[in-house]
């Protein structure tokens, strides 16, 4: 075991220096180098989490002379409760009350660049960075106090925003921070508070954002009203291929209260004094516009999977162990998942203002820095002249219309400088133009030996990319419609180990001989990008359905069969925990048409572990699936806000159940036909289970493991497995609509 190197300040150094500033200089010298220095990275262990990219402590934590503490994160609140968890971490390590911390999140003028808030990375990246930054900041303050009070650090304690000596003397943080004491490079390791001594981390803390949300406070970008704000709406083309042929804007221009009509190629928008007028004017423009559309732009919805499999693919073998082998029994199956949407309840929204050739954008984008880069490219402006500030939007679950509407707002604000412009998409815009989770196909084949052990495994997955996020202007919807249009950059597969379409395509199970092949399809018939879990939803659905099919072939209990092939102790523990709380007994007979199903995965094979058991009933006459209950067990490493984790898992199960039972984007040869909640139904209260129980396996002291997407795949497979248990019929094509189920089970 390595002993973590502590920030070592001998009493002599401190006394010799004799002042905070000097200490800080000496610290700086001892610890690393100044932020401004451009010298080569010192060769040492990598810094934890996002400290890698932003190593200066004061990028993360600043303490003012009045003692007020500000914590900075490049990650954004998306409804996952990240603000609260980050505040807990900082408060715990700094020894202050959570309420004493102000958190600034995702602002290109203020916070570190942490890329996207995605992939369940926030806790691993930002949480880890803040954990270490806060611990190191605390030790710096203790070190300074030691110098001032002339006592060894062993006799000092940080608590309540001050450093206390055992003789009763205290120095408030504000008194200790003269100079840039936190303007130092972080160390690879920190002296973290003992997990057993935690009073804030690991305890469920009420979310800091909820009170405003339930009382009508300003909580969302939709709620911003900077003085002088005007409203705009965009007239979206009726389809991907549509380009504006002709429009007479004059009658709309003459409507009183209409301030301006913005047109650039096929990008058409209207600015009005009042919001409803903007909506009416937008509708009038839509009525007046004529478009050129390609009547054969899209493939047939009915044969989309054959179409996709027929497209050219770039194949990569992402796992190849052992030799192809045969066994006593061969099992084969294919699974399909249609396009599915994020379906944010609040359509995307942004506010932008162009003043003195500088653009400020309030956005619920998941990545303020990449958005800034893309908007800069689109507007041909230097990025330094653009500031993107994250303000929460409605839950996004990945790459929805957030960036596109920000680009809309930027274009409109440029055409109408001096006034803040608020743009919100209409429901139809969000449904028809958000980038969907891609349609996918998986084919699995395995061999079992006589004892029911998997001896060979082959798995293929076909998919488009799972990220067309900005960074490039060509990934912003309105940029495609400009008179001088941008074009989609060539899509690329996201690399392993996290992967995109192949995320979680490699099972965690013990497989002596296995091949996993990712068939990456560059051509995108429908607009696609990251939807919660990316390929993991489909791959886990497929793998974990297939594991049940194998268990059935082996005559084994599904839970026992999984354990039989699993070495990872933490994986085994979530499985046994979920099974036990569920009351999983393979011998137990359920009422007729009832079934139960089990599934497990470790998200990305790197993040949180989740096992889910589901009980449901299939109404035989209608084929309707009624969820009765779900029990989940998760291991997210050290749990910072246990209730926050539970909330994420509960929500993930319900959302995944909605995808799995109901959802598929509809389209004809020309247009998207799922344009409202009637043509794209999602789960409502009548469909949610009677209860969901989430059991946490806390691992104090262990690294944080992102949880936000951990439930999506296992919930889907558990439902599929439970339907198979209830009906004796295996369904492999998502979603499991009543019609499909009924057709499969027959009369």
């Amino acid at each position, binding site marked *: 075991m390595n002993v973590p190197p502590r920030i070592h300040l001998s009493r002599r150094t401190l006394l010799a220096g004799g002042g905070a500033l000097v200490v800080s200089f000496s610290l700086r010298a001892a610890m690393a180098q100044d932020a401004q220095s451009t010298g080569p990275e010192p060769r040492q262990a990598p810094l934890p989490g996002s400290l890698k990219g932003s190593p200066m402590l004061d990028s993360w934590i600043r303490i003012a002379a009045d003692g007020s503490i500000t914590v900075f994160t490049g990650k954004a609140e998306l409804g996952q409760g990240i603000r609260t968890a980050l505040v807990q971490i900082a408060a715990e390590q700094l020894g202050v009350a959570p309420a004493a911390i102000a958190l600034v999140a995702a602002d290109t003028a203020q916070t570190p660049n942490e890329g996207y808030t995605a992939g369940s990375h926030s806790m691993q990246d930002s949480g880890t960075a803040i954990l270490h930054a806060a611990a190191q900041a605390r030790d710096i303050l203790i070190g300074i106090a030691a110098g001032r009070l002339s006592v060894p650090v062993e006799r000092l304690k940080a608590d309540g925003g001050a450093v206390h000596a055992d003789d009763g003397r205290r120095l408030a943080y504000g008194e200790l921070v003269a100079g840039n004491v936190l303007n130092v490079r972080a160390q690879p390791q920190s002296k973290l508070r003992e997990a057993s001594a935690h009073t804030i981390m690991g305890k469920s803390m009420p979310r800091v954002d909820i009170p405003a949300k339930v009382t009508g406070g300003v909580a969302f970008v939709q*709620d911003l009203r900077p003085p002088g704000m005007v409203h705009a709406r965009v007239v979206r083309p009726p389809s991907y291929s549509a380009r504006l042929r002709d429009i007479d804007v004059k009658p709309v221009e003459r409507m009183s209260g209409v301030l301006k009509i913005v047109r650039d190629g096929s990008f058409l928008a209207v600015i009005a004094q009042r919001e*409803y007028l903007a909506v009416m004017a937008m509708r009038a423009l839509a009525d007046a516009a004529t478009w050129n559309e390609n009547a054969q732009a899209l493939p047939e919805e009915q044969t989309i999977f054959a179409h996709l499999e027929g497209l050219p693919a770039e194949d990569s073998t992402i796992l190849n162990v052992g030799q192809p082998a045969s066994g006593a029994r061969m099992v084969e199956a294919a699974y399909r998942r249609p396009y599915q949407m994020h379906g944010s*309840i609040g359509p995307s929204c942004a506010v932008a203002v162009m003043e003195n050739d500088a653009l400020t954008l309030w956005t619920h984008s998941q990545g303020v820095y990449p958005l800034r880069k893309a908007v800069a490219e689109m507007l041909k402006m230097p990025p330094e002249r653009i500031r993107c500030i994250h303000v929460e939007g409605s839950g996004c679950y990945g790459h929805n219309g957030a960036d596109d509407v920000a680009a809309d707002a930027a274009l409109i604000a440029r055409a109408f400088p001096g006034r803040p412009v608020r743009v919100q998409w209409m429901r139809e815009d969000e449904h028809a133009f958000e980038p969907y989770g891609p349609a996918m196909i998986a084919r699995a084949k395995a061999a079992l030996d006589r004892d029911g052990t998997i001896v060979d495994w082959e798995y293929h997955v076909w998919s488009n990319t799972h990220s067309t996020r900005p960074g490039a202007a060509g990934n912003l919807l309105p940029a495609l419609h400009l008179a001088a249009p941008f074009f989609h950059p060539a899509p690329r597969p996201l690399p392993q180990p996290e992967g995109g379409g192949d995320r979680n395509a490699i099972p965690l199970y013990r497989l002596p001989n296995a091949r996993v092949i990712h068939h990456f399809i560059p051509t995108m018939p429908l607009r696609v990008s990251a939807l919660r879990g990316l390929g993991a939803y489909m791959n886990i659905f497929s793998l974990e359905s297939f594991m049940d099919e194998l268990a059935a072939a082996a005559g084994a209990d599904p839970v026992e069969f999984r354990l039989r092939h699993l070495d990872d102790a933490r994986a085994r523990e979530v499985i046994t925990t979920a099974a036990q709380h569920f009351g999983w007994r393979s011998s137990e007979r359920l009422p007729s048409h009832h079934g139960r199903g089990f599934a497990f995965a470790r998200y990305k094979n790197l993040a949180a572990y989740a096992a889910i058991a589901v009980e449901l009933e299939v109404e035989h006459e209608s084929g309707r699936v009624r969820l009765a209950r779900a029990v989940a067990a998760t291991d997210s490493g050290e749990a910072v806000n246990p209730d926050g984790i539970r*909330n994420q898992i509960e929500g993930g199960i319900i959302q995944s159940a909605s995808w799995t039972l109901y959802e598929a984007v509809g389209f004809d040869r020309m247009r998207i036909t799922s344009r409202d909640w009637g043509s794209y139904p*999602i789960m409502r209260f009548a469909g949610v289970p009677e209860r969901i129980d989430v059991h946490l396996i806390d691992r104090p002291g262990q690294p944080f493991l992102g949880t936000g997407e951990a439930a999506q795949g296992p919930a889907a497979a558990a439902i599929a497995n439970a339907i198979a248990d209830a009906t004796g019929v295996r369904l492999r094509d998502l979603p499991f609509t009543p019609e499909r189920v009924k057709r499969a089970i027959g009369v």
Partner: protein
Amino acid sequence: MITLTVNGRTHQSDADPSTPLLYVLRDDLALNGAKFGCGLGQCGACTVMVNGEAIYSCVVPIAVLEGRAITTVEGLGTADNPGALQRAFIDEQAAQCGYCIPGMMMRAHALLQKNPTPSDEQIRAALQPNLCRCGTHMRILRAVRRAAQTLTSATATNPKEGVR
């Protein structure tokens, strides 16, 4: 000019009588509670209460609201002094993104006014028109149950209290 009574206060609105209430609440009265979700009466994000009934404010023009009592989530209490329903949602941590929540609360509020002791089934049925994409349903149900309990026990001790 149409006179609207919102959370007990009257306002003159110069908006066109056909303007849906939602836009007047948000843009003219600067109330954030009611949200735009679909503008089609399909999701319930814009739900407010009018004379005891939950309505979709995105499809109800102000022309029909003269003289009727409009209640939004702001009328249930404040962040510093939350009403029973708001308290219950905070206590149950019944939000993820929270965008759907004010609409859920107003629909629940209208239910509890009519039926202070709803069964689980009745709560689900009442909330059926409202969508939540984050999957916060279990917590929303718990919060409504909790609010019903606090309100009925409050009414038991002091009959004047009750749903505001």
